[in-house]
């Protein structure tokens, strides 16, 4: 009996030493992820409520068979809008094609000024655009997809960044340090230090398994840790 007790105590002590940092990181990151409201992590507070954009505001014309044939086969056609103009979005085998709703010509990407204007309108805080950068592909905080994107940075609301589509000007995503901290802690939580997404990694498995033994030993020790105080005994 005695021996098992010591073994359990030793296990708890040594595994505690090995795991101490990771256990603390799990708890601290878990505490952050639970204590900070998810909606703030997602950055919903960074945006103003959408103004209604009605297609009727813009002039456009139907798209004819001849026009469409250039891009066939087309699996869908969508009439939508971007900054002050109607826009056709065609889904084709070559990808998405953007046509001016009025002229049916291919549209040019939006300019930096356009993007800055859209961003300023969307952003819920009264702060100037600090910088607007056209990135060749999504940054890591957006998942790194190989597509260009406008990054608009603000010096407000925990370094908020809004991301916009270069052609449509549609909001793609929003990030702030609240999200970045969450993401960093998530990395620490799941112990995938490269992609920050693989929860099935071996390091995590090993750590969690060890931690399970550690915690079990700790719980076990509770049985020995609470004693009714003995009356002084004299031989």
């Amino acid at each position: 009996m005695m021996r098992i007790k010591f073994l359990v105590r030793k296990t708890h002590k040594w595994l505690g030493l090995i795991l101490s940092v990771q256990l603390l990181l799990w708890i601290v990151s878990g505490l952050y992820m639970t204590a900070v409201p998810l909606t703030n992590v997602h950055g919903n507070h960074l945006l103003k409520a959408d103004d209604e954009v009605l297609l009727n505001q813009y002039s456009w014309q139907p798209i004819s068979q001849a026009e469409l044939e250039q891009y066939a086969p087309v699996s869908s056609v969508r009439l939508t809008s971007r900054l002050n103009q109607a826009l056709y979005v065609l889904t084709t085998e070559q990808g998405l094609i953007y046509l001016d709703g009025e002229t049916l010509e291919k549209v040019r990407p939006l300019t930096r000024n356009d993007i800055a204007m859209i961003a300023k309108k969307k952003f819920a805080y009264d702060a100037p655009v600090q910088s607007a950068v056209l990135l060749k592909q999504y940054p890591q905080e957006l998942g790194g997809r190989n597509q260009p994107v406008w990054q608009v940075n603000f010096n407000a609301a925990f370094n908020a960044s809004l991301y916009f589509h270069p052609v449509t000007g549609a909001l793609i995503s929003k990030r702030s340090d609240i999200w970045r901290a969450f993401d960093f802690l998530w990395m620490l939580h799941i112990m995938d230090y490269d992609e920050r997404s693989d929860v099935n990694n071996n390091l995590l498995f090993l750590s969690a398994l060890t931690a399970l033994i550690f915690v079990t030993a700790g719980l076990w020790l509770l049985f020995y840790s609470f004693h009714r105080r003995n009356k002084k005994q004299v031989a």
Partner: protein
Amino acid sequence: MNNSAQVKSYQEKSNEANINTVFWLRRIHKWLGLLLGLQLFLWVLSGLMFNWLDHKEVSGRYLLTTPEKSSIALQVDPTDVLKKYPNASSIQRVSRFNSEWWLIEDNNEQLLLDVVSLKSKRIAKPVIESEVNKRYPDVKIISTNLESERTLENRRFNLPVWRVDVSDEQESALYFDQYGQFLDIKTNSWRLFDIFWMLHIMDYSGRTDFNNALVIFVAAGTLFISLSGILLLFSVFKRQDFVLAGKNKRVPIQITSRNGFETEVFVRKNQTLIDALSKEGFDLPSNCGGGGTCGLCKVRLPQAEFNHQSSSFNKHQILSRNALKDGCRLGCQIDVTGAMTVELPEQVLKQQVKQGKVTASRFLTPLVKEIVLELDKGDELSFQAGEYMQFHCPEGSVELSYIQRPDFVDDYWRDNKINSLKGVRTDAIKRAYSMVDKPGRCRELTFLVRLEVPTDDSNTCGAGSSYLFSLVPGDNVSLSGPFGEFYAEQSDDEMILLGGGVGIAPLMSHIEYQLHVLNSKRKITLFYGVRDESEVLYLDKLSQLVDEFSNFQMVIALSNAKQHSRYAIGNISDVARYQYFKQHDSLPSCQFYVCGPPKMLSSTLKILSQFNVPDSKVRFDDFGSI
């Protein structure tokens, strides 16, 4: 407290504050562990399950194929749609279910419109089922239902929602919105995952909200478990833990106590247990310095075998047979030969080293001094009646002739050639002395010291007692403790105290405790034996107590009286026997406390056993044997 960290602090001889910190850390750690440990376990278990369950399998999408997109007719004119839905913000022509549709966004709502009627159209069951077949070929559909009630499984979709159960190993269900748009597939892996998810985020009803108050609260609590645990690491690990080579040369000693204290120390082989423990910071009290005669270094070996014929038992003969049977042994007589488990007295684990200054030192008789000391810097010692301290006596020597003394002492010393005596301490030694004071928390401690004079022609006197005799006000002393087992049991039974000479010291403490602290009404009888009238210590104080308390009586006996006296004549044990025990009608139910020189002690114990007083009723403090 069950506290190996305390030990470390003893080893470092660090201050009480450190001990207290560790004590509180340990309390926080274990109580929060008790409160929240189960959730911590569930977090780790569920976390492990998330890791173990394959992400792809949980998502279930691997079971499905993506249907090919079919193209639309090459004629798109949204004019009519926009007329009918003037608030639309997006109009899209799509191909679905083998025909064409308008998919529009109107007031932030998605609508699927029939291209002819331009009316929003819900999708019928057969269409949904054909969609399933497209995505999940070769699977049998068990049932298809339009759900308009919230379930845990459809919690993330807008209602109503199509649920199609199919017969595969995963008992999958495919979900489509009311326009036939595929939403998700839920598998058994996902369902299992979801249960662990619920346990992980502690949202037991919705399983979605991980910002709930409960999980935040518990996470904050476990943060304290973790932090206290990490801080405790500094105290539970000893350097020895990391020395692998050294560990081989050393053997582990598991240290326990009656209330569950546990720790482990590594010590070198082939030394006595008392030495080994002392090097690790566990100082067992000892007067004889390892001679096996004082009996103070008693420890318990839970695994010891009792074999009284074994010659090794002679070494422990000062211990009673019952104690030996119980596993008690003398720390100084045990050699560390291998791993062992030792139960130490609580006091050894709690002992403190105190520093103090002598404030008074006066002769009560030519051979007895009363020494009062005050602990430094307002420090206090909390002790119980009957406990003793160990004085640390540094290496050195004392010429008695240099000790200042009043005339009556000087006369006696000259007559008895004490002037020429010398006390030598070739090594630092420790000596035990009982407190005379009323127990509690004290800044001032009072001790009685009797000078050990030689019984033969030698000119050396007691090394410890001569040291204490030489102390003058202002001298610094260091002492450790408290120790002892000479406790009084709380009861209303009569208390019979038998003291000889300076053996009155712990008895004074007991008497004061009973009368002044407990206000006990029990009968207390003191038998106090000395050689002659001049040796009666604390006569005034004792007489006053007799006057003041009707339940306290005292018999003083003189063993060496030369003339008639108002006191009884004879050995105190004999006086007690003839004057009191013989007439007593319930002696075995009394409680006895005996303290005095060895001879007095042994004769008293013998008499008590003749009167059938059980061992359990007798406590004694054996201070004389060195």
